[in-house]
């Protein structure tokens, strides 16, 4: 069997590309606007989100046969919230500066609709290994959009990449200026819009 035909591959590639949570399903936009001013924060946020969504999927999937269905949403939320608090504690211990920059947005991963959506829609009805891979796929799909948006915002907004300035001094001397709007939320809207358009175009062209 070819790798691209396996269930695991589909569980990963679906959310990572064809059903990308941000570009195709328009989920999780809030945090995508807030933490994409710099690549560093976007990257850490993507890692945190991937960790939470894959492990919440795994845990919910392991327990899927014993969770009483009348309290399943509360149980899912308890799993997600515990993982998010754990992530927050770890960030505050080992990446204090980044965690200060991310401020409330780490805590707000709890309310990110991607996570509860995957727990409810996928993990409850699939075996643990597929659920975990689906979580990874969603994390990568979400993270890749976040990092690309942050790349453009940091490059055009402050002339940096990962905090190192890349726009040569001669450009500034020749009259080039950083785009202030890139540092504000509307810029993220515009970039996400353009990316969604590009991806829709590419996927429909493939189908034809």
């Amino acid at each position: 069997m070819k790798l691209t035909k396996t269930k695991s591959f589909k569980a990963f590639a679906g959310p990572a590309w064809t059903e990308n949570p941000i570009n195709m399903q328009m989920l999780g936009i809030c945090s995508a606007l807030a933490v994409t001013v710099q690549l560093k924060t976007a990257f850490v946020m993507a890692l945190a989100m991937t960790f939470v969504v894959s492990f919440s999927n795994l845990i919910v999937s392991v327990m899927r046969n014993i969770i009483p269905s009348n309290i399943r949403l509360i149980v899912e939320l308890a799993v997600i919230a515990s993982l998010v608090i754990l992530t927050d504690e770890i960030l505050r211990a080992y990446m204090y500066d980044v965690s200060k920059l991310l401020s409330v947005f780490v805590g707000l991963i709890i309310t990110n609709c991607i996570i509860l959506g995957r727990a409810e829609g996928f993990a409850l009805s699939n075996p643990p290994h597929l659920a975990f891979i689906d979580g990874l796929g969603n994390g990568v799909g979400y993270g890749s959009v976040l990092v690309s948006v942050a790349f453009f915002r940091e490059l055009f907004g402050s002339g940096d990449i990962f905090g190192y300035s890349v726009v040569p001094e001669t450009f500034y001397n020749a009259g080039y200026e950083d785009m202030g709007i890139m540092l504000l939320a509307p810029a993220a809207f515009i970039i996400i819009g353009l990316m969604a358009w590009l991806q829709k175009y590419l996927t429909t062209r493939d189908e034809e």
Partner: protein
Amino acid sequence: MPDQLKSIGFALAMCFVCGVLLTTAATALQEIQQKNMLNDRRKNILRSVDLISREKAYTPDEIARIYRENISKMAVSADGTIVSPDLAGPDKNLLPLYLFTENQNIQSYIIPIESQGLWGKIYAYMALENDGSTIAGFTVYKHSETPGLGGEIDTQWFQEKFEGKKIIDQTGNFVAVAIAKGEAEKKVPDQKLPHYVDGISGATLTGKYLTQGLQKTLSEYEPVSVAFRKNRLRCRMQEEQPWCETDETDQN
């Protein structure tokens, strides 16, 4: 009925497992987190007196070294006397104060600020120059204001506006420093401009609470500011236990 019992049992077990897990994590990481917070507070103290720049990254060791070489933690009594916290003994309503000294001369004194905010407390440092009236720097190190609105109080552009502002008016009366509702130049008369900084749009209440907090804290420290203003302080910083005394004879 057994179904409901099962649900309750499951929920209780869930609570127990999550609770134990999070408590373990929080306790295990507490020490490192507190170290980070101490380092962050020191970084902000140094930043308020321009000893370190915002653009450069410093290791915790560098921060600790620069802090040790330049800053001494003191205490102030209600009448404005500065004493070493070790000599002072317990309590007696002492306020904490940090001194930035260079060649045994006090360059500026740094006041820890704890103000009410819109959603939670705002923690900051305000450095005043040794003339007792000019603000040398202002840094916010902890707050829970709305990101993008009130949260802007921890940005450089807002904090830089405080530099050079005066906490006393031309006749020498204490007025503290306030945050204007909008652009200070348009909102306040010219003669009051030295006591106002530009507000943040969308963060009127944060500005209001911080103004109140600054007013309250600065008035508590007014006795020590008066001592600096009248140039009455005699300090021995080079000694093992640094101390200051107030010279009673009027210099003017």
